[in-house]
């Protein structure tokens, strides 16, 4: 399959402040991509560049093999076959649900229009409230209208700008799955912007991890979580602590953390590494000889999350069942279970 959206070396500047720099990635037809990163990393800027609201200073953006943004040419937003779901949904308050969906269908005959509106509303399950106005809808319903409205003109790609951030936490994960399902069913190419990794994991095939205007890592959700290729990625994705730990020639780690097989390590490791420890890398084991002092603990319902002090004072997280209830200051017997080892050069 050919790439539908191609972003090539794109740079966007605002008055000499570089918002994004040399961004390169592409999406195939039907693929769901996600721009993930902390706020201010440039992900919304990139989305606005794709939708045509932001000119680019270098590189090019093409959609369906047609260049839509270059340094000298900017196709106006209304001419691009791009759909968009806005953060606050941006439904037209003076139009009802039906008319909102109809808005982008200007060039169709009345009959096809009606058919299309019906199809879209049944797709998102809103046939019964097609005459209501946006302010009479719940947050989730508004979200669905926004999605139906964006999908109705059958755009080549649909852009979603933090589409779930205005919803309750509970609704959020439910809708994320629904949206993925729907996009997949209709084979719509989509690009989502979010700062919430759970959302990114739930919905996307491909994650573009951005930091400070640059791509930090471009990978599948699984790879990003388990094989972060930078300290930033390791720190930003998932829970975990990065510790400095000594390592000897045989691969034995200091602090009784166990040993690593040498062939999994880069050759120029030296005698100290940075190691990512995730909460599930350290397990409670009653019979273990290794006992670490509890610095703090928090109750999570089904689990306890403990912070444990290593011999040299660094702390590591440990997730246990919640019936393992030990006081702060006492020792917890644990076993190191480093399966997906993520290490970085100490320098």
């Amino acid at each position, binding site marked *: 399959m050919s790439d539908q959206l191609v972003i090539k070396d794109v740079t966007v500047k605002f008055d000499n402040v570089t918002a994004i720099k040399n961004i390169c990635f592409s999406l195939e037809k039907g693929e769901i991509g996600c721009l993930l990163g902390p706020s201010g990393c440039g992900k919304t800027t990139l989305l606005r560049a794709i939708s045509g609201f932001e000119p680019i200073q270098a590189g090019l953006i093409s959609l369906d093999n047609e260049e839509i943004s270059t340094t000298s040419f900017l196709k106006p*937003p209304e001419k691009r076959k791009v759909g968009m779901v806005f953060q606050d949904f941006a*439904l037209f308050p003076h139009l009802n649900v039906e008319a909102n969906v109809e808005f982008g269908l200007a060039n169709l005959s009345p009959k096809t229009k009606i058919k299309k509106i019906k199809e879209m509303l049944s797709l998102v399950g809103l046939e019964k409230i097609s005459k209501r106005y946006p302010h009479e809808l719940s947050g989730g319903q508004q979200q669905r209208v926004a999605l139906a409205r964006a999908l109705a003109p059958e755009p080549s790609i649909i852009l979603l700008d933090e589409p779930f951030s205005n919803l309750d936490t509970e609704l959020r994960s439910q809708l994320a799955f629904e949206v993925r399902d729907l996009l997949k069913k209709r084979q719509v190419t989509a690009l989502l912007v979010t700062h919430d990794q759970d959302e990114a994991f739930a919905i996307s095939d491909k994650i573009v991890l951005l930091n400070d205007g640059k791509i930090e890592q471009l990978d599948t959700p699984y790879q990003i979580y388990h094989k972060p290729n930078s300290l930033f990625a390791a720190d930003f994705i998932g829970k975990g602590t990065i510790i400095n730990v000594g390592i000897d020639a045989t691969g034995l780690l200091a602090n009784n953390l166990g040993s690593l097989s040498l062939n999994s390590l880069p050759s120029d490791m030296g005698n100290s590494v940075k190691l990512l420890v995730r909460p599930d890398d350290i397990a409670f084991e009653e019979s273990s000889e290794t006992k670490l002092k509890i610095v703090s603990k928090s109750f999570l319902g089904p689990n306890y999350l403990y912070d444990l002090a290593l011999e040299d004072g660094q702390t590591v997280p440990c997730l246990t069942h919640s019936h393992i209830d030990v006081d702060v200051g006492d020792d917890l017997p644990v076993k190191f279970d480093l399966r997906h080892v993520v290490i970085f050069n100490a320098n």
Partner: protein
Amino acid sequence: MEITLNNPKPFKSKREKPYWLFTLFASTFLIAAPVLFILSHLFMPFSDSWAHLFDTVLSDYIFNSIALMLGVGIGTLMLGVGAAWLTAMCEFPGRKFFAWAFLLPLAMPAYIIAYTYTGILDFAGPVQSTLREVFNWAYGDYYFPNVRSLGGAICMLTLVLYPYVYMLVRLALSEQSTAILEASRILGKTSWQSLFSVALPMARPAIVAGITLALMETLADYGTVEFFGVSTFTTGIFRTWYGLGDLQTAAQLCSFLLLFVFFLIILEKKSRNKLRFHQNKSVKKLSKINLTKGRAATAVFFAGSLVAVGFFIPAIQLLFWTLDYWKNVWDADFINLLFNSFFLAATSASVCALMAIFLAYSKREFKNKAAHTSAGIAGIGYAVPGTVIAIGVLIPAAWLDNHLDYLSTLYLDMPIGLLFSGSMVILVFAYLVRFLSISLNTMDSGLSAIKPGLDESARSLGASKKNVLTKIHIPILKTSVLTAFLLVFVEVMKELPTTLILRPFNFNTLAVKTYELASDERLLDAALPALCIVMISLIPILFVSKSIVIDKAKHE
């Protein structure tokens, strides 16, 4: 056995303030009384004068009033929305200046602009004289439109009333969410199409509110239509009273005029109810449309002509006339009249400000509906034409005066004369009824800055009740009180029909003097008092921040 109840005095609950509540209801009733009195005339017997009115002029009143409203409605819609769109959504040279200058016609009462343009455009005026000189024409050789006509009145009123539409629509447009306009673009509409399919429909409540305000001013106008010889309800009321001496019929005409006003209010509320939009405010600044050379020139031309025709040309003309002819008017009487105007305006503005403080605090103190409705009713005057209020005040006051005089003559053998109707008291009262809503709105928005929690947190930090007042309320409300005072001061300066009807014998103000000189066809001599009014009216626009002018337009 004796039971001693030694309970400490219970903390006085907020609801137990009967004197306060009584004063609130009584003052509201007093303020609403003139309107109620006029309305009651709808149910009184119609005198023979009605048959006469019906056969002769009534259809003129109705036709002209409706034609005026239609014309001014369409005119203010186009000028106001055009000006708002240009300054809120486009970028062109001088945009910031025009955004402010579009407000200037607010300082120009309709009757003054009407007198001025009559002077400029009539046969002996500079325009026609120049034309005759240049083309060597004589009288009757050429056609020139007559300003003193229905069309002229529509133009004059439109020129000074479009700022109401402009202010409200501009505010609405600049508060619109960027995302919504972008959504429209992404769904295939150009920015021009987006204006008509999204931005303006969303601004509809503001457009309707602005036009409603302009139309209320149109209905209230007396000076312009009287001078132009256009018979409307207001001129009809004057004629019925002064000409026929039939107060009852005049009051009934007033009540019909009031029906027009209520119809407008209901229409406005209806259109607003359906369209109560909840917009998520987006922080992003709207990127303005950059107008290119030709379009920018057109924009500057449109904006420039509007500001010139609506303010600068008449203002400068007034200035020149004043410089040439001020000696004709400037005498001891004029100084006396200046003093009268200031004294009257200052007194009324103070009374309005005090009443507004009382009402605003009442609303804050009592959470119950009766108190709120009561304060709301007190603000109804903004919609009622000055003529109607004047008649509604005059008739009861005259009745009261006559009876008091009769009684005091009878029992005390001491005639007291006309206690109210012959004095400034009813004039100030009528202004209070008419302009209270302006000061009330200013106070309300000022007081809303003091959340109830603020008092409580100050008390919990150890401030006494007195300290809360002096350290929190007074500093925060100072500007609001001043603004409320200033806005009413200016309105009283400008107000013509109320003053004409209610002024004590031989008592003149700047507005009345301007009117009298103009009525005597002494337009050039009228320039001095007219210019004084315009300059005083400029004060709030020049020195009080723009947001306050906007607050004023929202008074409702």
